[in-house]
């Protein structure tokens, strides 16, 4: 078997690190560290995009790398850190399932993700088709993070990590979506986070905490 060119090897390494960071997020309970992990994931994504842009010579990937850098590495982590300081939420409570259990589920999720991505990878013509499975795994693990957390802030980090996975998936399957769409998605994420900032303050004003266990009045037992 022929050895892969160095840039593809590097891309595969980056993809593997991306998945590793997802697992780290799954087990991390300190919210400040969770945000840092998210920023690192964004940085890896940015490097991978740059590498791919250089490899394929497509200009719009450079733009989207710049977008990732600005939004996911710098602005959103800054915003989240600021919110954490202003609101004073530092720790998430014990997750609904203990950490060892969550990790086991995470492993099963990865196997499932690779199974799901198999037919897509088989059809893809991009050099990065092997990473599609990893992208699906990142999406599903982020989903798992959101399900198992109680604090609003951790759920939001899970949401953003899912967005990273989607972005990585689009990149490895088709070298990114058209520019208009990427800009639109970035705008939506940005607005979503700003809305969320307002929203968090409203929640805290009402409940003096960001714990979602207060959110149980609207269940259907009435």
């Amino acid at each position: 078997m022929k050895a892969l060119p160095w840039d593809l090897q590097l891309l595969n390494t980056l993809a593997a690190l991306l998945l590793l960071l997802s697992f780290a997020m799954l087990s991390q309970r300190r919210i400040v560290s969770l945000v840092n992990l998210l920023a690192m994931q964004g940085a890896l994504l940015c490097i991978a995009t740059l590498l791919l842009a250089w490899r394929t010579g497509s200009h719009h990937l450079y733009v989207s790398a710049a977008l990732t850098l600005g939004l996911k590495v710098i602005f959103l982590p800054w915003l989240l850190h600021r919110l954490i300081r202003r609101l004073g939420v530092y720790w998430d409570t014990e997750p609904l399932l203990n950490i060892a259990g969550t990790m086991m589920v995470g492993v099963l999720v990865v196997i499932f993700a690779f199974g799901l991505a198999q037919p897509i990878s088989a059809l893809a013509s991009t050099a990065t088709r092997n990473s599609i499975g990893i992208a699906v795994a990142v999406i599903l693990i982020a989903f798992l993070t959101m399900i198992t957390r109680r604090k609003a802030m951790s759920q939001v980090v899970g949401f953003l990590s899912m967005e990273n996975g989607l972005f990585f998936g689009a990149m490895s399957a088709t070298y990114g979506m058209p520019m208009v769409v990427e800009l639109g998605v970035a705008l939506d994420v940005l607005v979503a986070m700003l809305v969320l900032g307002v929203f968090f303050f409203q929640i805290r004003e009402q409940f003096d905490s960001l714990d979602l266990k207060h959110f149980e009045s609207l269940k259907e037992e009435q």
Partner: protein
Amino acid sequence: MEFVILLGTPLLGALTLGFFGGRRWAPGANVGLSLVTFLAACALTSRIVAHGNLLVAREQFFIDAFNVFLVTLTAFVGLTTSLFSRPYMRIEAEHGRISARQLRLYHSMYQLFMATMLIALTTNNMGLMWVAMEAATLSTVLLVTLYRTPASLEAGWKYFILCGVGISQALFGTILMYFAAEKILGSEGVSALLWTHLNAVKGQLEPAVLGLAFVFLLVGYGTKVGLAPLHNWLPDAHAEGPTPISAVLSGLLLNVAMYAVVRCKVLVEGSLQSSLPGRMMMGFGLLSVVLAAFFLWRQRDVKRLFAYSSIEHMGIIAFAFGMGGPVANFAALLHMTVHSLTKSSIFFAVGHAAQKAGSQLMDNIRGLITVNPTLGWGLMMGTLAILGMPPFGVFASEFLILTTAMKQQPWATPILLLALGVAFAAIFGRVQSMVFGDTSAKRLPHPPALVPVFAHLGLVLMLGFFIPPYLADWYRAAARLIGGE
């Protein structure tokens, strides 16, 4: 030109009202902007009827028989809701439930919400459609939490996070679709995301990928349609926000999300050459109808009651689109129209009833007919209409759907009939005790705007007796389009 006004007015309005939305004249301006939007939609419609489909802005926007009727419906309900919201929000402000700042937010977001829905309906770009759908959620999150009560914050959070996750699935589906299309249409420009281009080559798209994409798209947009079991956010968001927002969420947003699902279904069915997408929609639809009918019994809040009724009707529509064929598609389109008109008129009536009683709990609302006969009869007639009583239009569409189901999917007919019966008993009993009996209501500082209620019900009544020929042609053209011809 009409098209620029159609999208430009609400966008400009959102910006202007973002600064001046708290002034005394703001509710009037809101009505004026909605009126201009509606007139532009009418002009656009007459142009489409006269000259056929329209592609504008380098094919980024596309208007055909299917979406133009939804554009008009959206603009119309947007206008009547703004009329209803004028006295409603004044009363809320006088009761001290909202401040001038909140009113500014409300008016600005109302216009923005209309703009995002119109963009989602008219865009030809599947990616842009996703962006607009997400923007529609974001513009209404802060409206659901407008009253800042604990329950409304919880509802807003659920709405934000569930719809956010749902719509991420739809993004993945869109990526997969782009992936399949790029092989045939090339990755230059946005051609591989344009619906018209995709529709032209749908037979060549890779079926395995499109099948997978449809699962994600249906789950994603289905969350916004409120299909069970992804409906959890819907009753909360409808019940806790201000009533005009409940009316547009239920009457319009659900339709727009359904529109997105159907657009995707046309492509996927063309690629798969099988009825799998249809069967999936029928499954989700039936589940929603049955689940909603039984949940109706457990409701005590009047707005939640009608929110569950919306889930039920969206289920019926999904089922009808799932069956496919010209008659079922025709009936589904008709049902979308009459449900939207009837449900928003019910929310108008319910909103004023709740203001009069000072509570949304059905136990506290009594004897509307003695305090305000017009309001009482409005609510009663709206309820009879939504329950599918003849001669209202809902009866016509449900009858068509049931008879088609009897021919094509006989096993589903008893389930549908049972659910409709259960829903009838649940809703009718509650509404009867709210309308008749001793009264608990008080006088309000502003007379309610009841014209929209009767305008909507009048239209629904007319559609039950007689569908104007041009409207029927139009529905038929759209039904053929959805049938993939």
